[in-house]
């Protein structure tokens, strides 16, 4: 568990970012909810629409709401220009603020509806204007209830803010997502505890303010407010102190290989004297847009992914042609520089146990054709729906005796126990090495290639200094070396490494 304490203490910058993001979102939520609540209390139509809308927002899962802001902001670029950020702080802020709206709005509206009508009549009777009535009577009498709403909103927002990691905004979600992917439970626990602790602390302080407002005790609410302000100021100071606009931001998607490669790239840059920031656990679809818009600077992406998702191509021109097309397209359409291929692929492939393959005399997909009708093929749940499978079936005329779906982990167990003879695997998966599996050749190139490429954002595309530091990585990582590093991170128990440690070992292995 000493890893846990180390992880917890290393979360300072994530915690600061989390606090600043949550506070901004709650602040924005309050700024919208309060005037809306006043308006709603004076117009039943506005009341219905505002509460209906905010309830509707609440039914959208937070993860989806965060992701939805990417296309929304992208389309808003038509109005606000190309500088509008589509990832990171802005979409996270907007989504979380929307999420915070409902509890604040509902409590404010309820508080106003429950004000003693006699008191309101008296306010009119003594000659208050409607502004005076709001300021002197409605606001102070509603304040404790509004504060209760702000408390609820704050706890929700602090929890949901962990999800903003997926759209490229640093938060306490970073250690949670990274830990989940690399099965580093100490890291997950550190992130969860930090976020839960923050939520509890904020709830406590806001509760103090709420009670202070109800008891009309300036000492209580003033003290609570002061503590909240001090916490926020510390976070802001910490953040502005650690903020470095020149830092090179390296992204990783949500699997071990990406975390390892990000550390490998990052440590080379740091050794060369560059400042480096990591943006871990980004959604796969988000990464390409982030690098194209210079929200991040460096990513590792795969030819097959860009080919299908970004170029929208379904054909397979062959490994090198695909790569060349992508390099040209990235340069011309996005200004992204593809520095080169790292040397390995993380593609779909068919794998067999070495003894079984030798027994059947199978070395390639072609060799499978005559014996396939006696064999069982296993794949992850989506594999048999993917174009890769259709393409292989058609290219070789393969027809297996049985087709079975397994979750990725059980797929390898099934192979080991003989419940499947052939499985669809990822070529760089560490378990291929660990289980000593044979990856079958694909002489007809039916499976598209998934070459790992080093991508540089437009911001640093012309920086030859950076390029020079990273060039030695090009073509240097064999699929065997990558598998070993992945396995070191994915495995349980003895010999398990953190992504950074695995990156160091990988660097040593490839002679850097």
């Amino acid at each position, binding site marked *: 568990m000493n890893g846990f304490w180390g992880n917890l203490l290393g979360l300072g910058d994530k915690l600061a970012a989390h606090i600043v993001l949550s506070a901004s979102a709650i602040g924005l939520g309050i700024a919208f909810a309060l005037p809306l609540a006043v308006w709603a209390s004076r117009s039943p139509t506005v009341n219905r629409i505002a509460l209906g809308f905010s309830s509707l927002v609440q039914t959208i899962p937070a993860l989806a709401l965060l992701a939805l802001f990417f296309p929304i902001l992208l389309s808003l670029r038509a109005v606000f220009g190309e500088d509008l950020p589509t990832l990171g702080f802005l979409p996270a802020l907007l989504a979380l603020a929307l999420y915070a709206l409902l509890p604040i709005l509902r409590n404010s509206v309820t508080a106003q509806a429950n004000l003693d*009508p006699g*008191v309101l*009549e008296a306010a009119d*009777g003594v*000659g208050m204007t409607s502004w005076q009535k709001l300021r002197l009577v409605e606001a102070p009498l509603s304040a404790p209830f509004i504060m209760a709403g702000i408390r609820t909103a704050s706890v929700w927002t602090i929890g949901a803010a962990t999800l903003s990691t997926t759209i490229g905004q640093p938060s306490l979600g970073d250690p949670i997502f990274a830990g989940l992917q690399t099965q580093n439970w100490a890291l997950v626990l550190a992130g969860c505890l930090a976020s839960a602790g923050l939520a509890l602390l904020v709830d406590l302080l806001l509760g103090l303010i709420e009670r202070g407002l109800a008891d009309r005790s300036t000492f209580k609410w003033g003290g609570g407010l002061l503590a909240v302000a001090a916490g926020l100021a510390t976070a802001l100071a910490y953040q502005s102190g650690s903020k470095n606009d020149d830092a090179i931001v390296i992204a990783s998607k949500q699997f071990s290989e990406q975390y390892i490669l990000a550390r490998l790239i990052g440590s080379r840059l740091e050794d060369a004297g560059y400042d480096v920031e990591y943006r871990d656990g980004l959604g796969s679809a988000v990464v390409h847009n982030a690098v194209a818009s210079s929200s991040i600077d460096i990513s590792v992406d795969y030819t097959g992914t860009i080919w299908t998702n970004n170029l929208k191509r379904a054909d397979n021109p062959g490994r090198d042609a695909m790569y060349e097309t992508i390099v040209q397209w990235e340069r011309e359409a996005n200004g992204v520089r593809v520095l080169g291929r790292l040397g390995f692929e993380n593609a779909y492939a068919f794998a067999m146990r070495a003894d079984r393959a030798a027994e059947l005399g199978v070395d390639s997909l072609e060799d499978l054709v005559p014996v396939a009708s006696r064999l069982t093929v296993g794949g992850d749940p989506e594999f048999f729906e993917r174009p890769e499978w259709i393409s292989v079936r058609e290219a070789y005329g393969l027809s297996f005796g049985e087709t079975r779906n397994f979750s990725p982990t059980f797929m390898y167990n099934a192979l080991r126990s003989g419940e499947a003879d052939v499985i669809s695997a990822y070529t760089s998966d560490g378990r291929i090495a660990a289980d000593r599996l044979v990856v079958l050749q694909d002489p007809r190139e039916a499976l598209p290639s998934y070459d790992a490429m080093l991508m540089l954002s437009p911001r640093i595309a012309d920086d030859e200094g950076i390029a020079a530091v990273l060039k030695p990585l090009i073509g240097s990582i064999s699929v065997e070396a990558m598998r070993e590093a992945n396995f070191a991170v994915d495995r349980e128990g003895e010999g398990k490494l953190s992504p950074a440690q695995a990156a160091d070992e990988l660097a040593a292995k490839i002679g850097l």
Partner: protein
Amino acid sequence: MPDSPPKPDAILRFEQVERRYGDVTAVAGIDCSIARGSFVALVGASGSGKSTLLKMVNTLVAPSGGRVIFAGEDVTGVRQAQLRRRVGYVFQGIGLFPHFSVGENIAIGPRLAGEPLAGARIAELLTLVELEPEMATRMPEELSGGQRQRVGVARALAGDPELLLMDEPFGALDPITRDALGDKVRELHTKLGLTTVMVTHDMAEALLLADRVLVMDTGSMVADETPASLLAGNGGNVAQGLVSVPKQQAEKLARMEAEGSAS
């Protein structure tokens, strides 16, 4: 009622005042003048329109037709806040601001006008309604119902109003408190030279406190008499229906008393 030319000393005048809520007519064309210094009771059953008529004076309710003239000016033309400072208002809900102390409650009208009340004036107002000056620092929740309405009256008097409007002011009080506060208000009315209009559904209260009783029924004014004239049987059926209740009660009580002393 025949159209009478407005008397020169009328502080308040209703001219064909109407108020409709959709198809429902709450007040149907009232014409009436109220003389400076008079204590007028506005009596009627629930839903007769008496409260609505009163609230059109300090513009808590806007007329659908006609005009309310206060001190020579149409009330809808005077700035609302200014008007309400010249017109004290006491109502059944009392409506003390729970987050203000007693003193702050009393001083709120002048404070809104930008003329904060001195502590001495607050103490004077509290004394006027027979409360201890020390009560100024208490919060409303610490007071009894009767004390609260006394503060309500003090608040209505704080701006030295010319006109005091009261809407069922004693409705929520127990009979003893109610009687004492009624007498106090009548005394202050005389002492401060106020013009008072009081809405009540209690004819006995009207007869005992007012020097002119207006009776309303389904939005119209059906009687305009002095207490003595009403007791003498004038004012028509509706008015006499209302008068008969306390009258019979009083006679019954008197008989019981007579029988008790005879035995």
